[in-house]
């Protein structure tokens, strides 16, 4: 079957699947980002506790996304919220870890300079620590986004659409066209989203933080 033939037959479904997929990714990464930023900032305030908490988070990160979706599926049933919760939890980890490390790694002398200038702790956080951790936070978001695109394929496992729908059905029926029809767009989606995040990061990073340092 030619590409045109494929598009003719599945075009509408494909566009819809990409839409659903993007929704999953966008909503989960947004939720994950908000939670991760808050937790990351809080953890950075209590380094003693974080020394224990962060490795534990690392351990949880080794749980496959399949399990998250599976467990939530068993408890919540076949609803989009199941996928969203599972993906959000997954999206939290990389961003949380990077936010924490980014903030903690801000040069002590800069924090002292800021304190010496008479900045309050909140001002130091927003004017110095977060801007300087931005690079790390961005790479966390990038990782989360790419993971989420990947994990969202699993949504089809519990029959909730997205590009996984094509892949799963293709694998089940041994239909190569369907597999590629789902796999390729998913791959391209991940690459494009990755590039898009790089682009945004590049745009908002001040010149002083770029290049050799």
């Amino acid at each position, binding site marked *: 079957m030619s590409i045109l033939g494929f598009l003719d037959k599945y075009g509408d479904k494909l566009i819809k699947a990409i839409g659903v997929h993007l929704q999953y990714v966008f909503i989960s990464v947004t939720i994950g980002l908000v939670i991760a930023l808050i937790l990351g900032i809080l953890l950075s305030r209590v380094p003693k506790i974080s020394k224990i908490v962060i490795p534990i988070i690392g351990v949880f990160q080794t749980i496959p996304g399949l399990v998250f979706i599976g467990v939530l599926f068993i408890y919540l049933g076949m609803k989009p919220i199941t996928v969203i919760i599972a993906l959000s939890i997954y999206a939290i980890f990389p961003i949380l870890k990077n936010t924490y490390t980014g903030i903690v790694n801000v*040069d002590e*002398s*800069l924090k*002292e*300079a*800021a*304190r*010496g*200038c*008479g*900045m*309050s702790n909140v*001002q130091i956080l927003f*004017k*110095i620590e977060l*801007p*300087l951790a*931005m690079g790390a936070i961005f790479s966390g978001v990038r990782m989360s986004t790419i993971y989420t695109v990947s994990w969202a394929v699993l949504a089809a496992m519990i029959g909730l659409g997205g590009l996984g729908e094509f892949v799963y059905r293709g694998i089940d029926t041994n239909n190569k066209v369907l597999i590629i029809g789902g796999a390729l767009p998913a791959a391209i989606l991940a690459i494009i989203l990755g590039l898009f995040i790089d682009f945004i990061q590049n745009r908002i990073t*001040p*010149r*002083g*933080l770029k*290049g*050799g*340092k």
Partner: protein
Amino acid sequence: MVSVFLENENDAIDREELYMIVYENVSKKYNDVTVVDNLSLTINDGEFVVLIGPSGCGKTTTLKLINKLIKMDEGTISIDDKNIMNIDAVELRRKIGYVIQQIGLFPNMTIEENISVVPKLLKWSKEKCHQRVCELLELVNMPYEENAKKYPNELSGGQQQRIGVLRALAGEPPIILMDEPFGALDPITRENLQDELKVLQKKLHKTIIFVTHDMDEAVNMADKIVFMSKGKVLQVASPEEMLNKPADPIISNFLGKLSFSPNGNDLTCADVMKKKVLIVPETKKTLECVALMKKRELNSAVVVDVNDKFKGAVTIENIREHGKPGEMISKILDTQIETVMITTNAKEAFDKLIETKADYLVVLDRDKTVAGIITGSSMTKALASVVWGEEN
């Protein structure tokens, strides 16, 4: 939290205050180690005080107690008769400039933003902030147009620390704390910045408390040197006095028995002068001269006539205030410069330097050509060479 400091904020700024800093029986311990031990010290308004001593003597801790970056365990520190314990730390720090060795410019901010950090915290208007930045950059000869929009990583180390000093000055604090600010700079830049800072301090009449472990620097800069060891003050004295009469063997050791030894009497100006001097002919135009000074990071030049004979000196401020573009520097040069002959005994020259309170003396050859200059730091170098032998 309403503090004494806040209530009196307005008079504090408007009135001609005496920002005297007084330490009374101040102690600080880390675990069981006493870093500052029952220290009492008075720092007068407008004074340039250098805290010096071997590493671990508590000088940096003593400094950071003032802006409450470190909390003391016992005793009181008062600024202008107000106990700093009653002043909110954040408010206090906005009124005290702070410069650190690591420079600590915020890499995510432009130079302008870095300088205006404190003014903004003090809620100055935008125009006032901007004006202040222009004025400060002018002060260190870094034109606004060229520098304000740059980021710290686009400047050299010396320039970065100039901005570090400006950032501390920006909020017009009466007091500035400096923690080994020039420690990470190369010797030439370091000397330039020392000279500039000294000039700035005289001009702006700030109280500066400066921590260093470098006696050269201390002698060069200080009105008063506070020598510390093991958390205690061993001696408080003017640089000359400390060199002449160290009060404790630890000090003489630290100076490397730096007092004027008999050997020192054999030195002449030729031995101790700096030979690297910017010499310009009096026919040079003002702008050319400024360009030369900038290139060498100097703020003054020695002027000679067509026969290379000494005429006087010009400073960059001098040119800026009185000079016109295209004019020859002979019109504005300062002829009232103290000079010594190259054969003059070094000690005599130093005495003259101290007596006349000049920043430097011009050393002349027999034929009145310029051989070099002598500054405060030449003095310490000379002493060092007596103690440790000639470097070459």
